[in-house]
């Protein structure tokens, strides 16, 4: 059972397609709905895992919330902070009832009594689509649990689950080191299940009898723009990217905190093998005409600016890594910059309250390997012949 019939092009700040599926269309396409007691079994049997990139088994989170006595909250996390991802916006805007059914099925299966849709502030298109769907469901008498739409700051880290739990408890939307899982003690001490929007949508599919492993949403960024595509595990990366008109030199998989790969190394691999590497299903194809070191420097600048500025090593370390890498990409590297990158990386690694700095280091480390051959051309006050005047593609779809 497919979610989207075609690839979904992402336009300027929104999904560039018509309005979302209506309740009648949704019910016609997915008529079966299991009983709440069967949904947990189904989610466990199909080994549904978190699609936000952590791949944590959903059934284990659910069991923790149930064991903690239920009565908690289900948070559908629609704060899609990664600029190279738009799949959650596509689901919210085009398949709102799939998301709302999934949220309700999750709540009923776990004894949760309240739902929250967590969005970035200003995510107007997603908000309107869901609000419209809620009105439709009320009119049709769908017995949904109470749902609040809450907007957090439009910052990179406000989609991190500990930041969401903290914000919903009245604190700042910043990550924190948790000692007890949110599923046990989360918002105001109540069991709290924070799930990525695609995970919630997959609960809905699982509850209507299909296998969540059968398809996966990915966001592909090429020089032509961003596209959300529903893929199968058997498909190769090449078949996906070439169909979108790109013949890249390298690919950044897993988003800004992911890893660079030489195109020839990964293009023949099947998406099923790359699942963990793609994290939240993120593929950025780097055109042959663009300098990978320059893109890496820009992404580092972005990630340094996105630091929650809570932890010293992240705050100071990422800033300096971004500065050094920008010098390297611009052909202004100083003596000692190369060992400096290694030294700062070692100082920052594993020392944040969240994994934000570790993602930045991973991305940088892979870039220095994949683009190693380009480094000599950036010495002696010059750069390689590829383009350096780039603006990062894609700002997601709010």
């Amino acid at each position, binding site marked *: 059972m497919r979610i989207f019939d075609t690839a979904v092009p992402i336009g300027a700040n929104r999904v560039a397609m018509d309005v979302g599926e209506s309740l009648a269309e949704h019910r016609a396409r997915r008529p079966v709905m299991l009983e709440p007691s069967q949904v947990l079994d189904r989610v466990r049997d199909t080994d549904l895992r978190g699609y936000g990139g952590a791949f944590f088994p959903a059934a284990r989170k659910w069991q923790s919330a149930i064991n903690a006595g239920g009565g908690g909250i289900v948070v559908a996390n629609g704060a899609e902070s990664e600029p190279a991802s738009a799949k959650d916006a596509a689901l919210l805007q085009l398949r709102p009832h799939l998301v709302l059914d999934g949220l309700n099925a999750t709540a009923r299966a776990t004894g949760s009594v309240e739902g929250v849709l967590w969005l970035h502030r200003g995510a107007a298109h997603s908000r309107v689509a869901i609000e419209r769907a809620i009105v439709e469901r009320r009119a049709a008498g769908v017995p949904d649990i109470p749902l609040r739409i809450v907007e957090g700051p439009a910052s990179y880290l406000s989609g991190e689950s500990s930041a969401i739990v903290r914000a919903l408890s009245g604190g700042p939307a910043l*990550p924190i*080191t948790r000692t007890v899982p949110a599923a046990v003690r989360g918002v105001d001490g109540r069991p709290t299940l924070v799930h990525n929007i695609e995970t919630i949508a997959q609960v809905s599919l699982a509850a209507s009898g299909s296998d969540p492993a059968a398809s996966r949403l990915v966001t592909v960024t090429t020089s032509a723009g961003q596209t959300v595509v529903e893929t199968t595990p058997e498909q190769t990366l090449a078949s996906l990217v070439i169909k979108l008109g790109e013949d890249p030199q390298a690919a950044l998989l897993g988003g800004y905190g992911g890893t660079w790969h030489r195109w020839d190394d990964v293009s023949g691999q099947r998406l099923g093998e790359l699942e963990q590497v793609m994290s939240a299903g993120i593929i950025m194809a780097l055109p042959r005409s663009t300098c990978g070191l320059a893109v890496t420097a820009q992404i580092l600048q972005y990630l340094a600016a996105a630091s929650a500025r*809570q*932890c*010293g090593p992240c705050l*100071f370390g990422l800033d300096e890594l971004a500065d050094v890498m920008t010098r390297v990409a611009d052909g202004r590297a100083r003596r000692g910059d190369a060992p400096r990158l290694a030294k700062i990386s070692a*100082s920052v690694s594993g020392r944040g*309250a969240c994994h934000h700095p570790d993602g930045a280091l991973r991305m940088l480390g892979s870039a220095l390997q994949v683009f190693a051959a380009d480094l000599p051309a950036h010495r002696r006050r010059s750069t390689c012949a590829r383009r350096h005047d780039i603006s990062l593609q894609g700002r997601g779809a709010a």
Partner: protein
Amino acid sequence: MSSKAILSVNSATCDGVGMCALVAPALITLDEWGFPVINSGEASASVKKARAAARACPHRALRVEP
């Protein structure tokens, strides 16, 4: 006194004041920005020092377990 104590820093709370490293230099060194790095393996050897370092922190960013 337990010999399995673990000293850890909550890096979100830590402000890099550096008192901990003054109190327990064998356990804690400061990185180039002044933030503490725990010398793993040392804490169990001197639980007393670890506790003293934790007490010295004005932000209560250090934790000794158990």
